[in-house]
């Protein structure tokens, strides 16, 4: 099995290397073959791995492949670890990844940098797989930074528009802040245990740390990393801008997989978080806040992809909330379902955008129901799942989250926020659908229904509907949540919330035009649309001071003393030279003066 596991990330890695080196010379077809084929292969391998894993009564495999390095006091190896959690992640990544690769073949057809695109995309898949398969924190960190790099490269894929480059840099730098926190967390582990093997160090922590606040620190720093990668408060600002990348990229990286890495990290190290309940509460709070704020922002966005971006932030917020309340399995469950329906939404959005000649502004859309029924169907299913309408996959996962959260912690502030979030989610899902497909047609589309575009969508529709049925072998990864009794009213409330939102939405959006106006141009709306002003805040707090510093000290103030010395010695030189007047008697005066000086010093 070891070899199999090894090949899962290796396939896309090799193909991406091949594409990077030789891609420019290959035509589109071989490139597509290579790009998609590699991912398909690794999907097959992972399927095999998952099957044989679940066959072997779910015992985790730890695989020590090669030593990476052994320094004085630190040993690190390329070790892989495969358990239920990895299985779910691998499945999601390769499965959804494969579909999105297929879709991209059609979507990117004719682009000058076709090969480069697939090289990056494969590299991303490889890195993501390394990230989730890593049995060693340093290897995980490699994947962690690797996916960050790929996201940077893909956001800036169309590098000729400067704003794309800016968005890409912003994404990387903001997440790097989180990465630094993560790195510091790892440093503590190194200091304490002298190793970075995930399982061992978590076990060590379980044994050694109860009571000590070290667990708290490590958990906090890990949370920092997770927050950065998963675009949660306060580091969420990069994700909406990241939509500058091609739509499949947004679907794969900025919705389905990479942004959930933070969730994976916390789930993976839950052993440590369990030791620090206060940090766990913080996680829940962060999640709840984020999901509500992002949902509100999503409610008032105009740009189609920005709506989806904010909804992504908000959904990941749900996952964090779940993690924070100890509902780990629910979080991972939602991670999977979200991957399905959010990928679906993005790809469908991509289709719409393409057929509207890269028009992204929802204000110029509408009435697309008749010309593009298939997309409408996809959107309907996606929005339903997003809004967690009953019988969709999203419904089950979100229910699980809210109920387990209630069961664990009762109805706290965070819980009510989450509940409210559910309502808002329903609202903006509805608004999205209405904006796109109902009303009168503003821009005439040229529907593009190539099979390569449609098939992946179809499959994703099915997954979005019935993905909840896929079993998750998580029972022996997480300590099973104690089954507390959830009263019926709560059940009903959770069940009803999306429906209420839907009804309210219909009532608001269809009956009351002025509310729509309010959505478009309210002060509150503008504030929300600007993402609650976080960007402005950071601009003033961090960016401008940094730029100012850079500007004032471009010429390196540390050089001034040197210049000063040079200057003084020049002055002295001139002064002394002036004394050298050439007059005999002045020289004689010099002698006499010197004599006086010496006599004065001596006597």
């Amino acid at each position: 099995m070891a070899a199999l596991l090894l090949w899962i990330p290796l396939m896309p890695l090799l193909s991406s290397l091949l594409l990077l080196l030789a891609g420019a010379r290959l035509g589109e077809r071989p490139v597509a073959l290579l790009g998609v084929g590699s991912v398909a292969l690794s999907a097959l391998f992972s399927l095999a791995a998952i099957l044989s894993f679940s066959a072997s009564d779910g015992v985790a495999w730890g695989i020590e492949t090669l030593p990476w390095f052994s320094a004085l006091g630190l040993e690190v190896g390329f070790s892989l670890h495969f358990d239920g959690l990895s299985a779910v992640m691998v499945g999601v990544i390769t499965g959804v990844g494969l579909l999105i690769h297929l879709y991209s073949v059609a979507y990117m057809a004719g682009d000058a940098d076709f090969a480069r695109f697939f090289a990056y995309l494969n590299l991303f898949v490889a890195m993501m797989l390394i990230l989730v398969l890593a049995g060693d924190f340093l290897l995980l960190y490699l994947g962690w930074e690797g996916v960050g790099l790929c996201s940077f490269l893909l956001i800036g894929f169309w590098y000729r528009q400067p704003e794309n480059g800016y968005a890409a840099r912003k994404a990387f730098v903001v997440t790097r802040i989180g990465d630094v926190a993560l790195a510091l967390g790892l440093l503590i582990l190194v200091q304490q245990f002298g190793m970075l093997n995930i399982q061992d160090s978590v076990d060590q922590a379980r044994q050694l740390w109860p009571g000590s606040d070290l667990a708290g620190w490590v958990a906090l720093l890990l949370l920092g990393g997770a927050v950065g990668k998963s675009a949660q408060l306060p580091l969420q600002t990069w994700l909406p801008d990241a939509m500058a990348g091609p739509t499949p990229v947004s679907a794969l990286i900025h919705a389905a997989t990479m942004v959930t890495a933070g969730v994976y990290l916390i789930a993976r190290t839950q052993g440590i978080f369990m030791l620090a309940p206060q940090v766990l509460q913080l996680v829940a709070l962060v999640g709840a806040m984020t999901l509500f704020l992002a949902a509100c922002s999503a409610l008032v966005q105009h740009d189609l992809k920005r709506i989806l971006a904010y909804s992504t932030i908000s959904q990941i917020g749900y996952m964090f909330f779940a993690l924070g309340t100890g509902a780990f399995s629910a979080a991972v469950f939602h991670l999977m379902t979200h991957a399905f329906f959010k990928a679906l939404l993005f790809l469908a959005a991509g289709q719409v955008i393409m057929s509207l000649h890269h028009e992204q502004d929802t204000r110029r859309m509408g009435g697309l129901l008749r010309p593009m029924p298939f997309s409408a169907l996809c959107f309907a299913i996606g929005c339903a799942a997003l809004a967690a309408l009953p019988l969709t996959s999203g419904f089950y996962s979100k229910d699980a989250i809210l109920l387990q959260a209630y069961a664990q912690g009762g109805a706290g502030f965070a819980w009510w926020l989450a509940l409210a979030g559910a309502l808002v989610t329903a609202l903006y899902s509805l608004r999205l659908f209405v904006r796109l497909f109902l009303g009168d047609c503003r821009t005439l589309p040229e529907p593009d229904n190539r099979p390569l575009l449609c098939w992946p969508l179809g499959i994703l529709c099915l997954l979005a509907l019935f993905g909840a049925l896929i079993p998750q072998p998580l029972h022996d990864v997480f300590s099973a949540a104690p089954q507390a009794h959830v009263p019926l009213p709560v059940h009903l409330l959770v069940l009803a919330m999306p429906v209420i939102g839907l009804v309210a939405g219909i009532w608001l959006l269809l009956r009351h035009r002025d509310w729509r106006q309010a959505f478009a141009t309210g002060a509150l709306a503008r504030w929300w649309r600007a993402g609650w002003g976080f960007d402005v805040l950071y601009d003033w707090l961090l960016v401008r001071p940094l730029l100012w510093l850079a500007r004032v000290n471009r010429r390196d103030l540390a050089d001034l003393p040197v210049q000063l010395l040079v200057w003084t010695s020049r002055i002295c030189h001139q002064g002394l030279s002036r004394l050298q007047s050439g007059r005999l008697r002045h020289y004689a005066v010099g002698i006499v003066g010197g004599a006086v000086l010496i006599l004065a010093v001596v006597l």
Partner: protein
Amino acid sequence: MIGAAELRALLPLMLVALTAIGTLLLAGFRRDARLAALGYQGGLLLTLLTLPWALPEQPLEVTPLLRIDGFFGYFAALFVLVAMAVGLMMQRQVRSKTSGERVEESYVLLAICLLGALVLAGAQHFAALFVGLELISVASFALVAYPCGGRPSTDIRQRNSLEAGLKYLVLSSVASGFLLFGIGCLYLDSGSLAFAPLPPSTSLALPGLALLLVGVAFKLALVPFHFWSPDIYQGAPTPVAALVATLSKGALFAVMLRYLWFGALQELETLVPAVALLASLSMLGGNLLALRQRDIKRLLAYSSIAHLGYLLLVLLAIGHAGVAIEAGAFYVLAYSLTTLGAFALIGCVCEAGDEPDYRLEAFAGLIWRAPLLGASLMLILLSLAGIPLTVGFIGKFYIVAAGVDAGLWWLLAVLVAGSAIGLYYYLRIILIMLAPQSEPSGIGGGRWLVYGLTLLLVLLGVYPLPVLQWLPVL
């Protein structure tokens, strides 16, 4: 009491004196520069060869005035070599310009200077000091002003040499006045002119020593007694400038070493602040004055001021550091060798044309015009700056060693600062020399002397052991 041993010990001095007289007579019979040069060099060569034989095993006191010992031997050899090199430079000058100037007597004067230097090297008595000093001075007045002989013309060389000669004469006489007055005070105080510890009853000793210091500081061109040196260097004929820079300063420094060595140490203690002041002033002032100087000869004058400043560290360390004496002795060698090289090079680069050009620009593109000369110049400058594999580095190494051994930390700090400034203008010349080829100007003769000196400078820089064995030690 003069016996055979004493006569044998005095042989070098007598030989040099004979050389002077002989050259004079030769010039009297046939006015031929070649012949005079031949006689001069021959005499000096003889002196050099007989020197080892003449030196007694044990230090020998010849009259109360002179003491012939290893110290004398080392410096005598050094000075004779320097004088020979200067003689060679002079010869080249004669060959280079055919202005019909009569140069025979200059060899006589050179020999007299050398005689004075030898006397100083052996002096253990103020009378000897005085005689030697004035022998050098008076002869060098004449040498500096030598070119102004002949009918007056608008020739700049003539005018400058006259001016330099007069300045040198007047100022140095003033300085000698101070020196003599100082000696007089000491004599008045102790009743003896021998180099020896002064008796404790010293009311006049301090002023005496101070005045003595004034005179010495002038001859060594220490700030603030340095004003004369750039003008003299510039005005005097290049070989004579080299002579003034090396022989007279070296000899005087030697005699000071001897004086301090012979018991005057506790007097030194009282002088230390003054000497330290002079040293710091010279190290900084000299380098600062040279910083942006555009005339190469003046620049050398200033840099030699700085070097004498470094050298003073030795005088201060002499009481506390075992290496002080040898450090001083070696530094004089390194300094003389490098300076001679520099002047020889000036002679053959700047005085190639009929009108000498002492601007730094004269060296522009030298390394491309004449690679070997360029390399020599670079090595000479590096040696002045004290960069390894040149004799200058060993010298500086010795000085710093003495300073560290004696714990003169503040002076060492000043030395570092001074050297840092110095690096600027040495490198500046190198950069000018590396500049792309400027107008192609010719190269005068005498480059072999430069090569020889440079070679020596590198050899001693890499493997100074042969010399180190000869160094006088406490």
